[in-house]
């Protein structure tokens, strides 16, 4: 975990294109970015600026077309699909705008899911999931299915699912996008405290300036490149 000079994440000239020939669309046009451990970064930008694309690539849910993505100095773009999955399993936590919980499955079972794929024994799994739910303030809601929970609660379950594996970085793609502003602020408070208390590195995509205000650093994307990268309440 020690930071020995290598940044947690480093992107160099990262590109992503869809389609071919004349119909080719460049979603990312050479992105350079470094994220140090313990940072809380907000990525902003208009629709189609490539901010979600970069998130998906960082989360190993998508693959870049060109350039380099280093995770703790490892070239992720050179990994096989299986290795990327394992990277996801052991190091990354992902929170989506649309929650993406398993339907008809209780909160605790949703949270246990990543541990199940890690092969954690049942009792330990259960304990860890309960602790993660407690951390997001959902003690007493363990047996409820997503349909029985509010949007804010569902996002908390999703955050608990991302936290339960004790990831190196939490990637959140518009985590407050489907929530009203009060629930959104509650989620942001939760992320801030996770960053402050546990030193969890957080990378968050958002549309909302208020939400971005919670981060230490705001990066602005335009047309698939980083347009501005400033410190927010912290010296660069």
């Amino acid at each position, binding site marked *: 975990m020690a930071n020995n000079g290598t940044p947690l994440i480093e992107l160099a000239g990262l590109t992503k294109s869809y389609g071919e020939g004349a119909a080719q669309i460049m979603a990312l046009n050479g992105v350079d970015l470094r994220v140090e451990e313990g940072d809380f970064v907000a990525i902003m930008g208009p629709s189609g600026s490539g901010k979600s694309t970069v998130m*998906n690539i960082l989360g190993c*849910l*998508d693959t870049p077309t060109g350039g380099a993505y280093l995770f703790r100095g490892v070239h992720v773009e050179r990994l096989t699909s299986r290795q990327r999955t394992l990277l996801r399993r052991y190091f990354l936590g*992902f929170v989506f705008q649309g929650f993406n919980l398993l*339907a008809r499955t209780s909160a605790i079972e949703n949270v246990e*899911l990543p541990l199940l794929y890690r092969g954690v024994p049942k009792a330990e799994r259960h304990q860890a999931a309960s602790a993660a739910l407690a951390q997001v303030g959902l003690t007493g809601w363990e047996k409820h299915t997503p349909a029985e929970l509010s949007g804010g609660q569902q996002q908390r379950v999703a955050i608990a699912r991302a936290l339960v594996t004790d990831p190196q970085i939490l990637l959140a793609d518009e985590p407050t996008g489907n929530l009203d502003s009060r629930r959104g602020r509650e989620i942001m408070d939760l992320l801030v405290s996770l960053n402050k208390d546990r030193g969890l590195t957080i990378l968050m995509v958002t549309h909302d300036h208020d939400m971005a205000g919670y981060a230490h650093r705001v990066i602005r994307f335009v047309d698939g490149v980083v347009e501005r990268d400033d410190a927010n309440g912290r010296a660069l």
Partner: protein
Amino acid sequence: MLLKSILLALQSIKRNVMRSFLTMLGIVIGVAAVITMVTLGNGATKAISNQIASLGSNLLMVMPRMEFRPGSSSTAQPFENRDVEAIREQIGSLKAVAPMVESSATVVYGANNWSTSATGTTNDYFTASNWTFAAGRPFSEAEIQSGKAVCVIGETIRKELFAGKDPIGASLRVKGFGAEVIGLLKSKGQGGMGRDQDDMIVMPLRTVQRRIAGNQKINMMMLSVKDGVLSDDVVNQIKLLLRERRHVGAGEEDDFEVMDTKEIAQTLSGTTKTLTGLLGAVAAVSLLVGGIGIMNIMLVSVTERTREIGIRLAVGALENEVLLQFMVEAITLACVGGLVGIAMATGTAMILAHAMAVPYVFNPGINILSFFFSAAIGILFGYMPARRAAKLNPIVALRHE
């Protein structure tokens, strides 16, 4: 990894009770329909072959030719005692030659009466048509020669007239004369075409000829061919002999018919085989429809399942783990559905076989075949969409609408 996948598969089945139930329903109905129909078809075939066996094996029936014309029908001249003697003497390889005269008769015992058929024949009749005695004895030579008023009765007559009493030695009134009951035949039950074979009395040939029919005619002969002899050859010999005796000119058609029970048996079992095949085909369609049902449910749930696969991949499931889970899920549903189908088919077939009075014949082949066919459909359509989804980038699977 396998254990993990089994656990996940069972969880998934439990959480999606309705979907699991509908998927299984398709398999259950398909399997049950095929097995039930084929089992009943087999039962019907068995019933018919049982009836044929009860007729007696290698049996030839010889009777005058009947002609049907619009408005009238005529029967060629019947046989005479001399014809029977000629066949007995000149045709080898016959085990029994029984002349027969059949006439309807009302029989009376005490206050009970019953309308039945009286057959006049010889002891050869019992041999040829496989009758065994439950009590009493066949006719004596003297009784046959003198045409004595004695009779052997079928089980139905005993039931209708004697209810509980011992019929042997009793005197039965047949068409106004008294006949002593000397024997009781063992029940054969229903014959072909639903006729009750036990509903008849048997008397010496002369007794029926003189006292009931009032002539010397013989309506029919029942011949039993010795085992291991080709009945076709015997039929040809009989035809030659009878043509000569009955003065049928060359080029003219036979004025009599020789029927071989083996042919009847072949025709009947051929018919039932066709019937079983037809039932099987109908059932196969229902299995196919069941299969399409499974396919439908699987395809309808593919959107939800694709997203589910996306979620699983996103939280760190390997492609193989997801696939194995879906495979186990599909196999479990297909196998449980198949077994329930087999159980249902066994129950239904037993009840229906009883209701239709055909024997229940367990056919392991069709059980295995339909089980594996439905399992294959279930696995194929459960697995294929999952395979496609698991190959996607997780983010594409997550966005699937």
